[in-house]
């Protein structure tokens, strides 16, 4: 029992620390990659190649004045960033970074927990993330925040549906809701090949869930200034950003698990494969951000309800038909 608790605590610190570190450096990577795509160097003043930039950013945000607007609903205003951050951190628990390995003579799994309803857990927890945004938008008593909050909640609810349906195909093929069993089912063929349609739907919906370009309407700078976190400053603002980037890691991890074969791959150790694939997905999202413009609100809804949702249902049907015909 004690040994178990110690192992869990160590894993918790290691995984949490690793994710936080990756997250801060993903912010730097995003700025660097965007920079190179946009013929500019990106941050390069703090430390060699700007490597200390995330730390500088963190210190800066920490020292900023924390402003709570006079008319804001104070309790909710303070809770909202936490409500955005907590689900983001909670989902990491079931992302399977690697299989069981032997460390110091003990068999340790490279993930916090393998719940037999892993996927459902992720969905349940990430569906809570919208609260942070809605409440932030509502409590700020700012019209831009309110519009941003409304936009994002409508967007997240709409896209959660097609996201869920897209996954059904994978679940049907793996016959399990557990993340580890999902990866084990992809030992031969990665699900991206038989489930290509599902993959396309999932990644589109996931980017929409993350409020990233081309679906960044809730925080669309040219329209709503910063959307729901217009009124936030200092660490509260930082918490939204933390949540956003942790979510990027989680979503990339889920995509890797569901469609890219998780930790499977030749030569390199499983953990390395998982991280490589995860980073490729992150890179893809940054690439999309550099390339695509923003959709309009009604077009976003049309895409979600009239294209992605029917397509995901078709995907389920096709999967079912193929599974029945080819066994």
């Amino acid at each position, binding site marked *: 029992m004690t040994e178990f608790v110690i192992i869990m605590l160590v894993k918790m610190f290691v995984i949490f620390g690793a994710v936080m570190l990756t997250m801060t450096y993903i912010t730097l990577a995003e700025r660097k990659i*965007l920079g190179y*795509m*946009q*013929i*500019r160097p990106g941050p390069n003043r703090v430390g060699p190649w700007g490597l200390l930039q995330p730390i500088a950013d963190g210190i800066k945000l920490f020292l900023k004045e924390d402003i709570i607007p006079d008319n804001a609903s104070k309790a909710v205003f303070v809770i909202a960033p936490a409500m955005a951050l907590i689900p983001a951190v909670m989902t990491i628990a079931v992302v399977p970074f690697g299989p069981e390995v032997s460390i110091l003579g003990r068999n340790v799994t490279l993930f916090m927990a393998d719940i037999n309803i892993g996927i459902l857990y992720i969905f349940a927890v990430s569906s809570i993330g919208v609260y942070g945004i809605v409440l932030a938008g509502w409590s700020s008593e700012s*019209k*831009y925040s309110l*519009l941003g909050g409304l*936009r994002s909640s409508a967007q997240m609810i709409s896209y959660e549906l097609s996201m869920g349906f897209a996954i059904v195909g994978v679940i049907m093929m793996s016959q399990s809701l557990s993340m580890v069993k999902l990866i084990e089912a992809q030992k031969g063929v990665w699900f991206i090949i038989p489930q290509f349609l599902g993959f396309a739907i999932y990644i589109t919906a996931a980017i929409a869930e993350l409020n990233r*370009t*081309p679906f*960044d*309407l809730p925080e*669309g*700078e*040219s*329209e*709503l*200034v910063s959307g729901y976190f217009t009124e936030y400053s200092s660490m509260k603002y930082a918490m939204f950003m933390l949540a956003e980037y942790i979510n990027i890691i989680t979503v990339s991890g889920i995509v890797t698990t569901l469609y890219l074969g998780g930790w499977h791959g030749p030569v390199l150790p499983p953990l390395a494969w998982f991280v490589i694939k995860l980073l490729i997905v992150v890179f893809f999202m940054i690439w999309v*951000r*550099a*390339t*695509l*413009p*923003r*959709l*309009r*609100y*009604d*077009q976003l809804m049309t895409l979600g309800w009239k294209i992605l949702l029917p397509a995901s249902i078709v995907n389920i049907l096709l999967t079912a038909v193929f599974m029945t015909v080819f066994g």
Partner: protein
Amino acid sequence: MAETKNMILNMGPQHPSTHGVLRLILELDGETVVKLTPEIGYLHRGVEKLGENLTYHQFIPLTDREDYIASLSNNLAYCMTVEKLLGLEIPPRAMVARVLLTELQRIASHLIWLGTFGLDIGAMSLFFYCMRERETILDIFEACAGARLTINYFDIGGLRKDLPVGFEKQVRDFIAIFPERMKNDYERIFQDNKIVRIRTEGVGIISKEDAIDLGLSGPLLRSCGVPWDVRKSNPYCGYENYEFDIPTGKTGDVFDRYLVRMEEMRQSLKLVQQALDRLPGGAFLADDPKICLPPKQKVMTEMESLIHHFKIVSEGFEPPVAEVYHSIETPRGELGFYIVSDGSNKPYRLRFRPPSFVNLESLAKMAEGKLIGDLIAIIGALDPVMGEVDR
């Protein structure tokens, strides 16, 4: 209970996509703009009144600060108006150089427009590509005048100084790279993008008749299919001798405005090429010692030039009693200056017709009933410069 109230949203004057200090009072029903009232005047500096208290020469730098995205065009419009008032002939070298530089300025201005329009609808990278090419043009301006934004290069009677050494090579280099950059970096990433298409096509349509009634000009009017351009209809600076087309649109939507401006950049490049090929030598400033500043060297060595210099700088010149209006085609449309002279060294009244101000009036007509996202695209395609609107 069933009664719903519309939300009033103050967009601006500090807002990322109102292009300066434009303030829009929006009445919103959900995301739909029900009523739009533009509020202007946040950048009012009383330039027209200032003009009444400055000599004709002293006013030129102020024109830079009107349409600061295309300051050379403003210089040109003002200088030509004063030249018209004086009946001054300007040397051919200055004439061709003016065409060349204002066309480069048009490209630079359209590049800023394209970049910010991209930003408005969320395409971030395009902005940086546009800035890269604009930088090349600004380098040319810098070589000419020493300034990049408020260039102040044209003078009454010609140019402030002669074109610099290496000017031709700089311009030729630009001509060599630009069409390719336009095709590869702008059109392929932007024009062929499905999202750009659905964001711009059929958005902000204004009919030919409405456009004429509102007095629109420039790309905005041409996108509705009215082939009207001051360079063709009332040629100045010898535009009648150049070969170029006036691109027009069909539907008058945001996408047509984009296409018209892109084609205008190509035509401008053509004009730059032609002007460069025929750039004559000779004087760059009219030889009228009472009006044009003598060269510095002469001021230092000749008594007479020193006196002229002193007279022009301290008192200026006294044009005949008259009223003149002259307009040119700036990147944003027809810019006209109206000067009433009472025979003194300062204008009795100076006024201008800024194209952005007139174009801005069409905003409500185009955006009412549309979504906020459309409004942003429409403002972007309108390309207002608030310095010019508020004066």
